[in-house]
């Protein structure tokens, strides 16, 4: 049981869960629900990008995978969130 709690995977999960709750609180505290809020959007999208990378890296074990797989998955995360933030700010 202790080894499960101290397992690096469990620590990653605790981090993911904490930032999930944090991003929900950021969205709730971000003023009126019907208003654009660039700070909230930037924060929650960046947090989502970090979470996706953490799952890919640690749970999917890409951190020990060949370079092509690391590059493809990390490229997807960076490219996707760059496009999402780019479209968001371009449309303001």
């Amino acid at each position, binding site marked *: 049981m*202790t*080894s*499960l709690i*101290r*397992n*690096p*995977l*469990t*620590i*990653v*999960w605790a981090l*993911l*869960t904490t930032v*999930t*709750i944090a*991003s*929900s609180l*950021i*969205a*709730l505290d*971000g003023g009126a*629900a*019907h*208003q*654009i*809020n*660039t700070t*909230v*959007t930037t924060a*929650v*999208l960046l*947090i*989502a990008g970090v*979470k*996706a990378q953490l*799952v*890919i890296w*640690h*749970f*999917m*074990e890409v951190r*020990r*995978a*060949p370079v092509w*797989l690391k590059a*493809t*998955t990390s490229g*997807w995360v960076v*490219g*996707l969130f760059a*496009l*999402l933030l780019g*479209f*968001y700010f*371009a*449309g*303001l």
Partner: protein
Amino acid sequence: MTDVAEDSATGVDQSDRAAGARGHVPGDPSMWFFVIGDLLIFGVYFVVYMYFRVQNHELFLHSQARLNLDIGAINTVMLLSSSLFVALGTAAARAGNSADALRRFWVALAFGAAFPLLKMCEWIPEISAALTPGTNLFFMYYYVMTGMHLCHVLLGLIIMCFVIRNLKTSQQPKISFVETGATYWHMVDVLWLVLFALLYLMR
């Protein structure tokens, strides 16, 4: 070298170290072909959603405010917890500890099965309140994207049942099959993390 030192310090499972051969592709490479393809297809949906969203901020913000953020957040934690136990189960299976692997996959299945049940608790009141795919563009994207994701969750649960059967019935479970199932399940988790931010959180 650094990883080995970290692993020793944190008391990581032997199994994690067994997976430590650098350059190891977890599971069947053809599953990775599917996973990368799926990530790209969903990526296009996410970007197209954003494209339409910024053209009608007001409609999307008003519609989004009618979603149940609590269930969305709880479902995120359910999938993350399920993914954790899948990763722990995979590590145990690799270490040759089938009993632990089996227990962990059962826990993962329980967390994973909570997702569609909670989704129903979310969708039924929304549909009863006349919020359907025909309501507006936001709800069309909401139901189509979460519906497609839900299909992936259901397929993932079926795959997990096969992994459990493999662990239960075989003296020497196929590690590659366990890793392949795990890879698929984690992809389902990754897609939801993006959906949660786009549909429930962003403003």
